[in-house]
């Protein structure tokens, strides 16, 4: 029987019962019962008709569906009676669910989806783990050329196997680094991209080894940003890392965005792009990512078995070749190619998703709290009705189901609304991160995972938001409720206090995270680094400084230096061994007389003599280096130390003239003290730093230029100078400030998103606290009235309400801190590197606590004021 026939069934049953009743009545009459009593007697004989009906329905096996439907219909009627409340609840849940599901959609397509839309089931990505060999010990990596060749030639399970390597090249037409992929010619086909947007893809000759086809395919994004969507791009020449490539095609955004690269070139071009290295002929270097398509009828297990055989043959060959020095053994991981299945990063991806979805879950929980509050207040106003139901014999289970149906209805409608957000949020997030990334959104298609997640959220929201109201209905005291004289005893302070504590705690965690992130961008750009970041430019060079080319390199550097200094606007040129804002490996510096191990860790910067003037770091005492100072690593010499160094080694004495010992037992005499800088981490003063003088004839090191005025023309001039001297140099000079800013822009947008979400959370928390308190105050108005009659002043009542709220807020803040502190520590560990987030945690906790305290005081004020307006007369009359 089908459930939609239920109405017909029901009519049928009614008719049957009616017939029976009539027959019974007739019989009663025949038995001599007076006609006027026969009807009643018949009814008595038949028994409880409602019960028969119910049992029969059970027999149909459809009772649960029917009951659910009834509950839902009833819920619909009951929410229509309070439309405002219902819409607020739906909006809150819709927002909470939508933000979650929207961000999840994004995470889904970045991390969880396989990288192909076309028949993802046959797509397999393979990761090897080479154990027991010289490099890359025991971690998942890429394949070596030989292993890829072996798989490609011997595999029967795979229809086709593609390989690629991700790298970064400098696209000289755009004068900036661009993501690139060196790929085998079947790459696009394996990834399910059949045809190019314009032009053509690679043909197999392009990828045959020893055949140099300098051709490239652009992604639509690179085509648009760097070539202005030039319609005549096909056949044009561009330069990658100094080599000319002919553009042969453009791959559409929809497909290429899945692939991380901006430019694709045949993998045979790798030696050309990666100068000085030839990975094809380095048999033991893993560099190729490998993915394939299964032949129809074969499973991933077949592939695993076959590949294991092939790889163990390869392992044997390897051991033979290396005279058994290394006992290589290869394990394989076969995945669907999604990020989260990549065994090398899985844990980090999971942790990252938890970190992103965690705060969002808090927002949803806050929304649930709000809805709980709304439903709770309704349950209380409806307590008369509920009591009547209970008195008439409804079980508490039925009651709970009824309330659950109301929550479910709200959550379902909220969830349906949130689908709008599911489509909007990823676009907003990506736009905020960068216009380039927003193209990515084109291929975000919510799939079953998204809708599954949505369903889970809806169900969770339903249950969470209906728990409290059900509890309130459950504990309803029938007698007092029926009399309509129920005191405040049913929904007393425990529930309301609990709600306030929870909302304050969640709001607090959200605000903490937002404060932490909000400070990040300004940490990057806003702090005074202690040197001139705006007018110091790094000039990245790649020069062959090997002994064979020593004379050539020497000429190159000296010529370049003189030509750069000649550029109008350039003031000076300097070298340093350390780059700014990069982690520095410390060295052990000792005082004379200390043995190895007794010294202290110090970062050592080997600099040219005009370093301080170029970077604008003031010398506080003593002198700078001069050309007469010895520079040979064997001879003793002079050194300049930072303030922090001086304080660390000679807390009381005068550092000038003191001597120190370097790890290679060189004795240095301190001749000057330089100001501290903040060059290792953003906003943090560096630890002890030692400057040594660089050998004037040394090669390599980082080249920095100090200049006046606008950086752009200087950047161009420097690039042209370098290019004129050595055409093969791949160079994009940038001021230190510019590189900082590029970092900060991304972070600012990220911070913006997080700030927005925290604001939503905070708003929900405030509304929630306000709602809870208003509810509590309304509920206790009679109590307040009586208190007043008994002599309590309005101030006393105001104070009692606010004090309780403050107490709850403080408890909430403490609970929140207990969640936020470890969460932020984890976050800080995640973003460790240049950011001193650890130091910010206390600050974030403090600021957030103050903010929440203020905000919840505001939310308290109005209900408390209302409490003082309780009318004593009314209270008395009611008693």
């Amino acid at each position: 029987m089908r459930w939609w026939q239920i109405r017909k069934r029901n009519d049928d049953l009614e008719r049957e019962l009616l017939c029976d009743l009539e027959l019974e009545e007739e019989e009663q009459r025949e038995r001599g019962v007076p006609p006027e009593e026969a009807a009643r007697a018949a009814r008595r004989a038949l028994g409880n008709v409602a019960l028969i009906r119910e049992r029969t329905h059970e027999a149909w096996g459809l009772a649960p569906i029917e009951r659910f439907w009834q509950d839902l219909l009833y819920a619909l009627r009951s929410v229509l009676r309070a439309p405002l409340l219902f819409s607020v609840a739906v909006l809150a849940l819709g927002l909470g669910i939508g933000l979650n599901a929207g961000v999840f959609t994004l995470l889904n397509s970045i991390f969880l989806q396989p990288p192909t839309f076309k028949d993802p089931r046959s797509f397999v990505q393979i990761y090897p783990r080479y154990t027991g060999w010289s490099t890359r010990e025991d971690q998942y990596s890429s394949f070596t050329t030989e292993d890829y060749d072996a798989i490609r030639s011997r595999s029967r399970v795979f229809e086709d196997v593609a390989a690629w390597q991700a790298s970064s090249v400098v696209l000289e037409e755009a004068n900036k680094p661009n993501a690139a992929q060196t790929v085998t010619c079947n790459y696009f086909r394996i990834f399910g991209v059949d045809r190019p947007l314009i032009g053509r893809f690679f043909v197999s000759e392009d990828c045959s080894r020893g055949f140099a086809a300098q051709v490239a395919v652009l992604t639509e994004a690179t085509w648009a940003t760097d070539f202005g969507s030039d319609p005549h791009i096909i056949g044009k020449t561009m330069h990658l890392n100094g080599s000319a490539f002919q553009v042969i095609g453009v791959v559409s955004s929809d497909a290429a965005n899945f692939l991380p690269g901006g430019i694709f070139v045949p993998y045979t071009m790798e030696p050309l792009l990666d100068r000085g290295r030839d990975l094809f002929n380095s048999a033991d270097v893993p560099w190729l990512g490998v993915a394939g398509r299964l032949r129809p009828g074969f499973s991933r297990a077949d592939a695993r078995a076959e590949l294991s055989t092939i790889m163990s043959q390869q392992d044997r060959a390897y051991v033979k070749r290396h005279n058994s020095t290394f006992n290589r053994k290869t394990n394989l991981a076969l995945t669907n190619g999604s990020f989260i299945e990549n065994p090398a990063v899985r844990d980090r991806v999971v942790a990252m998703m938890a970190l992103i979805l965690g705060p969002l879950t808090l927002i949803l929980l806050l929304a649930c709290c709000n809805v709980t509050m709304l439903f709770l207040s309704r349950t209380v106003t409806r307590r008369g009705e509920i009591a009547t139901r209970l008195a008439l014999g409804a079980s508490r289970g039925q009651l709970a189901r009824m309330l659950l149906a109301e929550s479910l209805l709200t959550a379902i409608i909220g969830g349906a609304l949130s689908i709008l957000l599911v489509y909007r949020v990823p676009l907003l997030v990506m736009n905020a991160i960068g216009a380039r990334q927003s193209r990515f959104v084109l291929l975000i298609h919510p799939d079953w995972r998204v809708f599954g997640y949505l369903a889970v959220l809806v169900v969770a929201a339903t249950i969470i938001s209906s728990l409290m109201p059900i509890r309130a209905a459950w504990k309803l005291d029938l007698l007092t409720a029926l009399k309509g004289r129920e005191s405040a005893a049913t929904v007393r302070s425990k529930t309301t206090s609990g709600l306030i504590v929870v909302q304050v705690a969640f709001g607090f965690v959200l605000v903490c995270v937002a404060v932490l992130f909000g400070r990040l961008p300004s940490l990057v750009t806003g702090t005074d680094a202690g040197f001139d970041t705006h007018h110091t430019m790094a000039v990245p060079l790649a020069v062959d400084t090997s002994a064979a080319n020593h004379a050539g390199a020497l000429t190159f550097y000296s010529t370049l230096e003189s030509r750069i200094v000649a550029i109008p606007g350039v003031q000076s040129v300097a070298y340093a061994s350390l780059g700014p804002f990069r982690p520095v490996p410390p060295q052990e510096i000792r005082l004379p007389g200390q043995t190895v191990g007794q010294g202290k860790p110090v970062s050592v910067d080997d600099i040219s003599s005009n370093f301080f003037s170029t970077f604008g770091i003031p010398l506080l005492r003593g002198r700078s280096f001069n050309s007469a100072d010895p520079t040979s690593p064997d001879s003793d010499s002079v050194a300049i130390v930072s303030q922090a160094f001086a304080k660390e080694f000679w807390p009381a004495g005068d550092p000038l003239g003191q001597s120190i010992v370097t790890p290679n037992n060189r004795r240095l005499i301190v001749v000057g003290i330089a100001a501290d800088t903040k060059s290792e981490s953003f906003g943090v003063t560096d630890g002890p730093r030692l400057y040594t003088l660089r050998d004037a004839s040394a090669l390599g090191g980082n080249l920095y230029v100090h200049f006046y005025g606008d950086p752009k023309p200087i950047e161009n001039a420097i690039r042209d100078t370098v290019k004129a001297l050595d055409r093969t140099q791949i160079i994009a000079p940038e001021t230190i400030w510019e590189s900082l800013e590029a970092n900060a822009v991304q972070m600012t947008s990220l911070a913006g998103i997080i700030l927005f979400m925290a604001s939503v959370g905070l708003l929900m928390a405030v509304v929630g606290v306000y709602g809870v308190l208003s509810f509590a105050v309304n509920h206790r108005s009679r109590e307040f009235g009586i208190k007043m009659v008994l002599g309590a002043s309005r101030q006393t009542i105001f104070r009692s309400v606010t004090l309780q709220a403050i107490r709850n807020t403080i408890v909430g803040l403490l609970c929140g801190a207990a969640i936020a502190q470890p969460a932020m520590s984890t976050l800080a560990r995640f973003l460790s590197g240049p950011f001193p987030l650890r130091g910010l945690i206390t600050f974030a906790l403090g600021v957030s606590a103050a903010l929440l305290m203020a905000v919840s005081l505001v939310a308290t004020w109005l209900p408390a004021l209302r409490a003082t307006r309780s009318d004593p007369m009314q209270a008395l009359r009611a008693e």
Partner: protein
Amino acid sequence: MTSTKDQVKQRSAVLQGTLDMLILRTLLYGPAHGHQIGKHIQRTTNDFLQMQHGSLYPALHRLEKRGWVTSKWETAPDRNREFKYYRLTEKGRKQLLVEESQWKQMMEAVARVMWPTGEES
């Protein structure tokens, strides 16, 4: 002493296991409507089994759902009006045999415990 309420309870407990079988057996005489079935069982057992409509109708619908009986609205031969007549199906007939043999086995088993052969002699 057992109260009347307990007696009723006991009877319906007996019924619960056998009601399906009794209904099927009743329908072996020919199609009947709910009221007739109930009355028949009551009369045949000399009013020992009081037919509770509360269990009769659910049972009838359950049997119908299992395909052991079919139902049809038909005009009663002695009256000028329609009743819902239940009719035994072929499947129902087989089911009756199954239940009957099970019931017999049950009775024999119970009898062996209650009146062992040694005691009789």
